[in-house]
């Protein structure tokens, strides 16, 4: 099957800055694909390369097998939900949603009917006459979504669409977006810097760092088997153990990752790893206890309800060797 979106050693340089550096990427049709990374990691530039607002310095981009290097944005069958929503302030909600149909020459009646249909899909029935300025952030977000979907794009691009919403609304929208994608079967490419969002929504995700993809895989793979120090750190703050420490634990001497929730606190005597507690951070569902072990700091997630030691106490750390995942590099 042809991939919905394919990058072949694509680079985008801005002067000396390599915003996107020889990225290879393939997004299967009908998947919810997330691009995750800190700001400046190249994820948004990748999205803009797909929509056509940036041109690759090197390499080729294919959308459903077709090279789009010379295709301007208005002729690509992809639509974007912009980070700031980019709703037209002089048009009302219905005209905003119908804009894509209007510029394609669809008549007013059909256009309005389709726009209303889309507004119903995003639960904004009856908001057609309002101006974007009269809507809340969450409502604007839905209008932006409806405006993109009314064109029935083959790929929908979402640029940090939930960034401006408050936590409760964001969680509700995450569920809705996911459900919408399942229902419509359109390929979604979603850019975010929020690892929780990426893990919970995506079928597959790519972790970006310094213009390169650090790792690509299912959320489960990325979370439990981070390949690099960066991924381990960025996605759920894993513990990263240096090779000498890993060797002491009885595993081959490579860098390795260890999830905080896979660890238990024990008595200091007889434990393979032990040290003094240097920090306790209450997280609601649990407490993250930081232990200074020779050569490393290790975080342990202690579930709520369990007994917590005092700061400064000497403790041991127990775990299954199966939870120690070797990494390719530091």
């Amino acid at each position: 099957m042809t991939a919905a979106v394919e990058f072949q050693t694509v680079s985008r340089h801005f002067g000396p800055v390599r915003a996107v550096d020889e990225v290879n990427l393939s997004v299967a049709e009908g998947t919810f694909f997330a691009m995750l990374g800190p700001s400046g990691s190249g994820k948004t530039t990748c999205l803009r390369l797909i929509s056509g607002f940036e041109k690759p310095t090197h390499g080729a981009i294919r959308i459903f097998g077709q090279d789009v290097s010379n295709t301007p944005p208005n002729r690509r069958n992809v639509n974007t939900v912009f980070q700031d929503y980019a709703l037209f302030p002089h048009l009302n909600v219905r005209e905003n949603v119908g804009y894509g149909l209007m510029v394609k020459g669809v008549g007013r009646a059909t256009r309005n009917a389709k726009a209303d249909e889309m507004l119903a899909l995003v639960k904004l029935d009856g908001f057609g006459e309002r101006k974007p300025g009269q809507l809340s952030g969450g409502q604007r977000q839905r209008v932006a979504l409806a405006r993109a979907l009314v064109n029935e794009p083959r790929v929908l691009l979402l640029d940090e669409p939930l960034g401006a919403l408050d936590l409760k609304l964001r969680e509700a929208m995450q569920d809705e977006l996911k459900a919408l994608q399942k229902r419509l079967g359109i390929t979604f490419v979603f850019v975010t810097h929020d690892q929780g969002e990426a893990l919970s929504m995506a079928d597959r995700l790519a972790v970006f760092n310094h213009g390169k993809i650090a790792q690509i895989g299912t959320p489960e793979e990325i979370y439990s088997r981070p390949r690099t120090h960066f991924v381990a750190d960025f996605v759920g703050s894993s513990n990263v153990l240096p090779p000498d420490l890993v060797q002491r634990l009885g595993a081959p001497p490579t860098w390795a990752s260890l999830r905080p929730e896979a660890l238990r606190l024990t008595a200091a005597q007889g434990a393979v790893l032990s040290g003094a507690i240097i920090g306790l951070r209450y997280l609601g569902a649990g407490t993250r206890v930081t232990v200074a072990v020779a050569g490393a700091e290790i975080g342990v997630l202690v579930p709520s309800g369990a007994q917590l030691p005092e700061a400064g106490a000497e403790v041991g750390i127990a775990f299954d060797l199966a939870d120690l995942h070797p990494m390719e590099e530091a």
Partner: protein
Amino acid sequence: MKSALLPERGPGDRLTAIFWRRPRVLLAVLIAPPLLWLGVVYIGSLAALLLQSFYSIDEFSGLVVREFTLKTYGELLRPANFDIIRRTLLMSASVTLASAVVAFPIAYYAARYATGRWKAVFYLGIMLPLWSSYLVKVYAWKLILAKEGIVTWVADSVGLGFLLDAALALPGVGGNSLSTSFLGTFLVFVYVWLPYMILPMQAALERVPKSLLEASADLGASSAQTFRTVILPLAMPGVIAGSIFTFSLTMGDYIIPQIVGTSARFIGLAVYQLQGTAGNLPLAAAFAVVPIIIMLIYLSLAKRAGAFDAL
């Protein structure tokens, strides 16, 4: 132990306290002087002018008859006077249109692409002509456009003299040379008022986020469609603001048509002559009311057309 309140330091703190307790006092203090200035000096004299226009002049004695009448307004409709109004209106409209067309690319460039040093160059380039005397500029243009001037010389030396001759042969706007034709008056008006069109346009365009243009392209619009359906409507308040300047400045000007152009009169010149040499203050006042009425009509039409929807 430290007190919960900080010590009062003097009259400044006492005044601040008064303003904090009664915010309206501060507002009143700030707004009263300009309001008096506008209300009494400006609106007052405008009302006096309006009053004058309802008086008439006694044709034998040349004295102003202080009785309410619409006779003076009736005089505006006499062919000689109506011609002046029509001519001024046409000139103002064409100057405004031309200014908008010339200003748009400049304003667009400045708003979209110019950054840092180029932005400074832009502002300097636009403002610099405003710093030198208006009279000097107009006389300079008279020389530039004269029969022996640089425009004729350049046109002749590159073999385009025939184009210039063809333009001057146009009925109604042509003439002996550019400096003695309506075409010349038009060119100088456009030059002199152009900055007043560029600046508000640039300010309006600057407020249009780039993402709106991208959204338009993303939704399938061509560049022309984006211009028509997004850029132009959003820039409209700026275009209207600029056109208020160019339109009303052209309508009121009485210097440029005197120096560059034919001897045909414009409203400004008519007002100037009527209140001075002719001593017909009522008719001068009636003439002066015309631009006000025209601007009001223009603005209400613009409002009805939705020019201010994006404000």
